C-alpha cells in the first residue's frame, strides 16, 4: 500500500500526509478512522493549539517591560520548537504504522465520555445559581442512573450518605466555603 493513502472508516482516501488539509482533519474527527490516523489528527491539533498559545503569549509579551518579558519570550520559542519536534515524530510514527497496520486496542465508549463531560459542565454552571447541596444530589443521582452504577436503592443510599458526609466534614467540621446559592 502506498504511504500516501489514508484510511477513514475502512475506506482508503488518498491524501499527501505532509499537506494535511483542514477538511481532512474535520472529516477524521467527525467520521472517525483507524487508531493511527486519529492519533495523527490529535497530534496535529495539539501542535496547532501549542503554536497558537505560544504566538498569543509572545505577542502579548511585546507590550510588557523588559523584566517581565524575558522568560515568556524564551518559553515561546521553546514551545514552538518542541511542538514542531512532536509533530515531526508523530508523522514518522504514522508512516511506520501505515506499513505495520497495527492492531486496534480495546474499544472505549466515546459517546459515554462526551455525555458525562456534558453533565459535569451543566452541573458546574448551575451550581453557582442553585447551590451545591441542591445540584450535587441531582448530579450524582442522574450520573449514577445514566452510568447504571448500581441498583436504584444503592444509588439513593450512596447519594444521601455522601452528601451527609460532605456536609458534616466540609461545612460543620472544616468550615470551608461551599457555593450555597439562594440558601446562603
Amino acid at each position, binding site marked *: 500500500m502506498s504511504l500516501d493513502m489514508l484510511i477513514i472508516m475502512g475506506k482508503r482516501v488518498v491524501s499527501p500526509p505532509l499537506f494535511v488539509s483542514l477538511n481532512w482533519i474535520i472529516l477524521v474527527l467527525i467520521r472517525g478512522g483507524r487508531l493511527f490516523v486519529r492519533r495523527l489528527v490529535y497530534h496535529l491539533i495539539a501542535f496547532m493549539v501549542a503554536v497558537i498559545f*505560544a504566538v498569543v503569549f509572545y505577542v502579548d509579551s511585546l507590550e510588557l517591560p523588559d*523584566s517581565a518579558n*524575558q522568560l515568556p519570550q524564551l518559553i515561546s520559542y521553546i514551545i514552538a520548537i518542541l511542538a514542531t*519536534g512532536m509533530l515531526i515524530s508523530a508523522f514518522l510514527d504514522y508512516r511506520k504504522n501505515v506499513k505495520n497496520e497495527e492492531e486496534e486496542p480495546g474499544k472505549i*465508549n466515546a459517546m459515554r465520555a462526551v455525555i458525562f463531560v456534558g453533565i*459535569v459542565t451543566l452541573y458546574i454552571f448551575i451550581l453557582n445559581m442553585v447551590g451545591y447541596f441542591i445540584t450535587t444530589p441531582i448530579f450524582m443521582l442522574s450520573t449514577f442512573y445514566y*452510568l447504571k*452504577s448500581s441498583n436504584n436503592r444503592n444509588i439513593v443510599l450512596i447519594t444521601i450518605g455522601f452528601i451527609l458526609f*460532605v456536609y458534616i466534614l466540609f461545612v460543620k467540621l472544616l468550615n470551608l466555603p*461551599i457555593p450555597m446559592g439562594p440558601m446562603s
Partner: protein
Amino acid sequence: MENILLGLSNVLTITNLLAIIVGTAMGLFVGAMPGLSATMAIALLLPVTFNMDPATGISMLASLYLAAMYGGSIAAILIRTPGTPAAAATVLDGYPMSQNGQAGKALGVSLVASLIGGIMSSIALLTVAPILGKVALEFGPVELFAVAVLGMTIIGSLSQGSVFKGLLSGAIGVMVAMVGMDSISGAARFTFGTTYLLSGVSFVVALIGLFSIPQAIKLIQKDEDVVRKINSIKDKMLPTWTELKGMLVTIIRGGLIGIGVGLVPGTGGDTACWFSYNEAKRFSKDKEKFGTGFPEGVAAAESANNAVVAGALIPTLALGIPGSSATAVLMGALMMHGIVPGPTLMTEYADVTYTLIWAVLLANIALFFVGLAFTRVSIHVTRVPNKVIAPIIVVLTVIGSFSINNSIYDVYLMFGFGLLGYFMDKINMQTAPMVVGLILGSMLGNSLFQSLLISKGSWLIFIKNPISLTLLIIALLSILQSTPLFGMIRRKIKSY
C-alpha cells in the same frame, strides 16, 4: 541539629499524631480502591487541610501518600488489579500467593517490607536533606536558575512518552505560571484584560483538575470487567522471624533502590517497584520461584515503592524541585499555606519542614499498625465500582477548587484544566511536567531576571558559573539521552 529536635517535638503533639493516623487510614482505603491513585487522593483531600496548621495538614497528606503505596498492594494481591501504578510488580507474586490461600501472608510481607523500606528512606531523608539544603543555601540566582532548568528537563525527559511531549508539557506549565501580576515590574502579564487572572492561575486549582478529571472520565468510558473474584484472607498476616530473615537482604536492597529512584525527578514508585523486583530476581538463588507466589517478590516490590516516598521528598524539600506528581501536590499544599518552595524550606520554614520529615518516619510505624488492624476491612472497598467512584471524584474536585479562593471561576478553570489533561492523555502527553512547570515558573522567572541583572543582560553568565554550567550540561544530557541521536552514538560505541 536543633531543627531536627524541634521537628520531633512538633510532631509529637496529639493533633499531629492524630493527623498522621487519620492520614494513614485514609491512604490505606484510597490506595485499595483500584480507580484512585495516590496523587489524586492527595489532590482531592487538599481542601481538608485548608484550615489546618501547615505542619499538621502536610503531615496528614504525606501519611496518606505513604499509606496509599501499601494500600495499592491490597487490590494487587487480592484481585490482581494494582490499586496504584506503583503496585504493578506486586501482582506478579502477590496474586498467585493469594490463590494458594496465602493472601494474609502476602499482605503481611508487603506490610513488613513497606515498614522497613519506609523507615530506611525516612532516615535517608532526615540525614541527606539537611546537608543538601545547606549546599543549596549557598546558591545564588544563577545556580538556582540552572537547578530549576535541570528539574524541568529531567522530569520532562524521564516521564513516560516522548521527550518532546514531556518538555512541551513542562514549558506550557511554565508559561501558564507567568500569568498574573509580574512580581518584579508589577505589570499585568497575560491577563487579557480580566481582573480574575491578575492574581495568576492558582496552582492548586490547576493540579486538582489535571490529576482528577481525566481519571474520572477514563473510569467511566471503559466497561468494567465482569464481577471480580476477590480472594479472602484466611491465614495469619505476619511472617515468622525465619521467613523474614530470608528476605531481609531483598527488602533492604529494595529500600535502597527506592531511595535512589525517588531522588531522581520524573521517576516514581512504578519505576522503583519493577527495578527492585527485577534485581531481586537477578540476585536470587531461586529465580524460577518468582512469579509463582514467592513472598520475596512481594517484599522486593513493596519495600521499594514505600522507600520512594521519602526519597522523592529529598529534592522536593532541599531544593524545592518536586520529583514526582505526588510530591508536586504536597508542594502545592505547602504553597497554599504561603510557604514558598525553594532552598529556604530547610531554614526559614524549618519548623514545618522538619515536622513533615518526622511525620513521614512516624507514618511508616503508624502504617504498620493501621495496616494490621484495617487490611481485612479494606477488602470491601476494592469492590466499589468505578462508575460510582467517577461522579464522586467530580463532586470532590468542585469543593476543592471552589473553597481555595471562594470563587466559582476557579471551578471553571479547574474543569478546563481537567479537559486539557484528558486530551493530553489522548496523545500520551504527561500532565506531571506541566504541574512541575507551574510550580517552578516563578522561581525560573525571578532567578533569570536577577541573573541577567547581575550580568548586565548577558546570557553567558550561566556558562561562566561552574556550578550552573555543570547543571545545565546534565540538563542537556538528560534531554539527549532520550533522543534517537544518543541511541545512535550508543550503538556506534558498542560496535567498536
